[in-house]
């Protein structure tokens, strides 16, 4: 299954896109690692990490019409956001809460947003984005049904992608969203990045079923489980989900099985709830190393190119950090801005 998925994905993507995927995964990882370091140095107040989730996120992102289709991410979606087009500087500006941050310095970091890319601003209460993503998908279908857009026009959004963790599927918000998605056959992809823990609470305390994807049947939507540490398999199931949405065949619930190889956030200590052996076991299954090995094996990547990419990515992260450190703070009075959008006409 996995081998066949990888083969199909690789054929569809082609070498240059495969390399682009690798580069984004690497960039996300190095940016994430730098953020942890900056926190330990006392330079930033907070970091929440997506380390370990890069394959599930980047594989998914490359399967949709990036910058056109709607994306309503969650706080671990750094790699996904970079794949859509947010920049390392965007992220660094949010870490430092500097002027130029897409929230204007108002949000904590990792609340990814950029209207020009159709990436919607999220909040911190989990799963709130999922029924809103159903609303975005509802709007897509509405415009198509009203004849306001051509369903095959790829310059228009044709699906809404949203992500959340497995713990967040305990929220009523998620249930209501999946129900709308099923009832209205919405063009939507919901990716549950199942990393086994909701901060400290393990998945068996969240649900009595083994696979979140099993629940899809209850909503009349497609449900699929994928190895979220396999970027090609993640791409492949997301590709199929996107085609389903584009063809008017409704929503797909993708459960990407993965693992967060670091604590929940810079304020967490994961030693109280999981063993070092378990973490080490998952680190050995690192999705970036795994993809790197595959690319080397396929002779798409060389050892020399690995080193070059590391240097390029490091320079990019350095540059982003420098830009954020040099950026001014927002004016304190900017706290009063953007409460109401101006009424026109």
């Amino acid at each position, binding site marked *: 299954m996995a081998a066949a998925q990888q083969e199909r994905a690789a054929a569809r993507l082609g070498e240059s896109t495969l390399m682009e995927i690798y580069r984004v995964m690497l960039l996300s990882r190095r940016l994430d690692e730098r953020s942890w370091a900056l926190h330990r140095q006392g330079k930033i107040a907070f970091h929440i990490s997506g380390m370990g989730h890069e394959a599930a996120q980047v594989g998914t992102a490359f399967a949709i019409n990036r910058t056109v289709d709607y994306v309503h991410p969650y706080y671990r979606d750094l790699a996904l956001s970079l794949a859509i087009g947010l920049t390392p500087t965007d992220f660094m500006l949010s870490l430092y809460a500097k002027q130029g941050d897409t929230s204007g310095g108002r949000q904590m970091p990792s609340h990814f947003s950029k*209207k020009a890319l159709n990436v919607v*601003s999220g909040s911190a209460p989990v799963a709130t984005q999922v029924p*809103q993503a159903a*609303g975005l998908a509802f709007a897509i279908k509405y415009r198509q049904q009203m004849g306001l857009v051509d369903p095959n026009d790829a310059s228009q959004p044709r699906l809404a992608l949203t992500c959340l963790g497995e713990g967040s599927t305990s929220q009523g*918000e998620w249930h*209501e969203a999946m129900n709308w998605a099923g009832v209205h056959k919405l063009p939507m992809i919901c990716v549950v990045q199942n990393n086994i823990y909701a901060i400290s609470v393990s998945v068996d305390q969240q649900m009595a079923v083994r696979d979140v994807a099993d629940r899809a049947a209850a909503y009349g939507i497609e449900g699929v489980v994928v190895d979220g540490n396999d970027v090609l398999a993640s791409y492949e199931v997301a590709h199929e989900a996107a085609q389903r949405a584009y063809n008017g065949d409704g929503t797909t619930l993708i459960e990407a099985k993965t693992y967060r190889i670091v604590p929940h956030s810079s304020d967490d200590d994961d030693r109280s709830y999981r063993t070092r052996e378990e973490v080490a076991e998952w680190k050995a299954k690192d999705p970036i190393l795994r993809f790197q090995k595959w690319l080397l094996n396929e002779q798409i990547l060389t050892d020399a190119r690995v080193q070059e990419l590391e240097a390029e990515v490091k320079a990019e992260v350095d540059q982003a950090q420098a830009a954020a450190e040099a950026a001014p703070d927002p004016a304190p009075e900017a706290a009063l801005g953007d409460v109401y959008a101006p*009424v026109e006409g």
Partner: protein
Amino acid sequence: MSQMTLIDAIRAAMDEEMARDERVFLTGEDVGPRGGVFRASQGLYDKYGGTRVVDSPLAELSIVAVGIGAALADLRPICEIQFADFIHPAFNQIVNEAAKMYYRSNGEWRVPLVIRCPYGGGIAGGLYHSQSVEAFFTHCPGLKIVIPSTPEDAKGLLKSAVRDPNPVLFFEPKKGYRAIKGEVPEGEYFTPIGKARVAREGRDLSVFAYGMMAHYATIAAERVAEQEGIDVEVIDLRTLLPVDRESILASVQKTGKALIVYEDNRTMGYGAEVAALLADEGFEFLDAPVRRLTGPDVPGVPFNHGMQEFFMPNPDKIAEAIRELAGY
């Protein structure tokens, strides 16, 4: 001019906005072929079809959240919450999401959403079909809160709400849906959000109210004018958020006395903000303590008729409160 009930005016506003703009759609429980449990959307399903008049699943949270998503995608949703009492599951989506979206995206993402919501007591609705919930939301910058008390305002304000780029909570005094009738201008007009209305001019005392209580306050004002010659100014606040400070202060500058009437529970109700505003910025205008006539601080409006009437302010109680304050 034509005579309309409050609910006819609300339906007319939705009809006009749906005819004008294909992005406007309606969703909520029973809004489709049934036309809404109060008939606010009667006929709209037949006229505009199931794509634009959408019966939602029985789930208030997602009625609002799907509305937010559609608004983010630049549609113009009108979401109906069947009773204000049922809006609480959607509180998170309204307060944490709709209200904060523009602010948290540095002005990039807008939520042009209208949430229509019948509210208020006196209709044998008991604890869960009688609530006044406005105070929960008037504490929340980023929202606009509108409550009409006349058919003319209901139509003009709802049309303004649909065209507003911000989330607007449009609370409708359901006891007045058919009880309140009035003239509605011919042709298109808009009532601005953010401006109170002088429902009755007067010199002796100001009554501030909204919704059903504004209607009752006008009745009470006429009665005391006739019976005791007390000349009451009634300010129908119409928009609770943003607060129309100028209208409130200007009226008390003229009359020197303020009575605030609301059917919500007394403590931390909307009148507390009006009283605080007057104490802070209108202190020198005041000739008497600021008074409130409100529902009592109990968890809900009881179902028993006598207990319900005990709870609810009405024209008699308002007239009595006016007499008392006028005599101070």
